[in-house]
């Protein structure tokens, strides 16, 4: 299922600034076996003297395409992310291995409602799920709650807006500053907001939560408070606590 032992050579096709601290990279990887929505990969960089570093990144693209999309936020004191966000250019090479992970995934055969909850760049695997939902014409009710510091910090804003339909709803939470005329004051995700913007527990959605540890901790606690069953809440976190 994993086939993860093989490193494949990728060539950066494009590297576009997407937020004040992040870029979207398109990487062409001949031989990439395709990936499910929500999976991640290992990315390896090699310096000219042979020094290597490997990090895991969620994949924003989905399906059989061999051009994969990553969205990378620069981490303070990072070693790999600053290179990917500042330095790498189209034509540069890197290596990837994957896809990895068989749990934090959505398959188009899942009929149940799905609630996605993203904090910051945690939207990446949820973007892959949203794309899969859109492309396959799935009628499973989807709802994405996306928490960002400011509108400028959001990835994939236009594409996500284009998904909105009877079976896909998009809700925003702004934690530092909201667009002009936004009905709510900026602030972190609260119980009322979650209750209003999430598929109710009675409908037994599968919930995917991805973001920084503090965000995922807060969101998953609220979900349990609202009656969501633990076994239906899947989490993916990054960073310390």
């Amino acid at each position, binding site marked *: 299922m994993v086939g993860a032992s093989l490193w494949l050579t990728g060539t950066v096709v494009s590297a576009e600034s997407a937020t004040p601290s992040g870029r979207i990279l398109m990487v062409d990887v001949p031989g990439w076996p395709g990936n499910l929505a929500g999976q991640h990969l290992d990315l390896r960089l090699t310096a000219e003297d042979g020094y290597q*570093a490997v990090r895991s990144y969620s994949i924003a693209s989905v399906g059989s395409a061999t051009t994969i999309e990553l969205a990378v936020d620069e981490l303070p004191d990072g070693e790999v992310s600053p290179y990917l966000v500042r330095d790498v250019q189209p034509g540069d090479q890197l290596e990837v291995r994957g896809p990895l992970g068989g749990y934090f995934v959505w398959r188009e055969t899942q009929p149940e409602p799905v609630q996605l909850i993203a904090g910051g760049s945690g939207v990446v695997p949820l973007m892959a799920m949203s794309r899969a939902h859109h492309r396959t014409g799935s009628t499973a009710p989807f709802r994405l709650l996306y928490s960002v510091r400011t509108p400028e910090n959001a990835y994939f804003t236009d594409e996500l807006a284009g998904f909105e339909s009877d079976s896909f709803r998009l809700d925003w939470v702004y934690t530092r500053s909201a667009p002009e005329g936004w009905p709510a004051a900026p602030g972190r995700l609260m119980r009322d907001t979650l209750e209003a913007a999430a598929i109710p527990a009675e409908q037994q959605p599968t919930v995917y939560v991805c973001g920084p540890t503090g965000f995922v901790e807060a969101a998953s606690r609220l979900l349990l408070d609202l009656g969501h069953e633990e076994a239906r809440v899947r989490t993916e976190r990054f960073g310390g606590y």
Partner: protein
Amino acid sequence: MSVFSRGFGLRRRESDPSLPPGQYLTEDFPVLSAGPTQFVDTDDWRFFLQTEKGRTEWSWAEAMALPIEEVATDIHCVTRWSKLGTSWRGISLDSIFAGVDTEYRYVMAHSYGGYTTNVPLDDLLGGKAWLAFEFDGEPLEPVHGGPMRLLVPHLYFWKSAKWVRGLQMQQNDDPGFWEQNGYHLRGDPWKEQRYW
């Protein structure tokens, strides 16, 4: 043919011989869990050891009456962070297994919340594994697996099951949660046993 990433390596971290291959050092304590954090009160906490011959159970007070050890160790997560020189207090699994009669050589650890992970018995005995309830002099926080987690620091840290509630002996090395989802059955960081 080698692949080089043009211009990479300027911000490299110092290498450290204590780091297994492919790991980097963190001062942070990252959190990885497949689901919500469990909040288990020590009054409600129970721990079991189930063999083919019977079952033993401990309450929190009974567990605390077992010999308690200080553990200073490095920990290594399969997601590539390592943390060196961490300090814990816990109960050696040698104490848990003292006098226990079993023919089985494999163990499935079970957690509150449903998580499981498989470990060979040999990896739990001989002063290599603990039930840990303190980190850095403080009660272990729920987000890091408190009140009690398994601590098997010579294997990748997903083997150190958070919110552990029991060990079940098994005849075969049946896979646990992450092991069914693509991770290695044993997970030795020095051999880079990350994935199948």
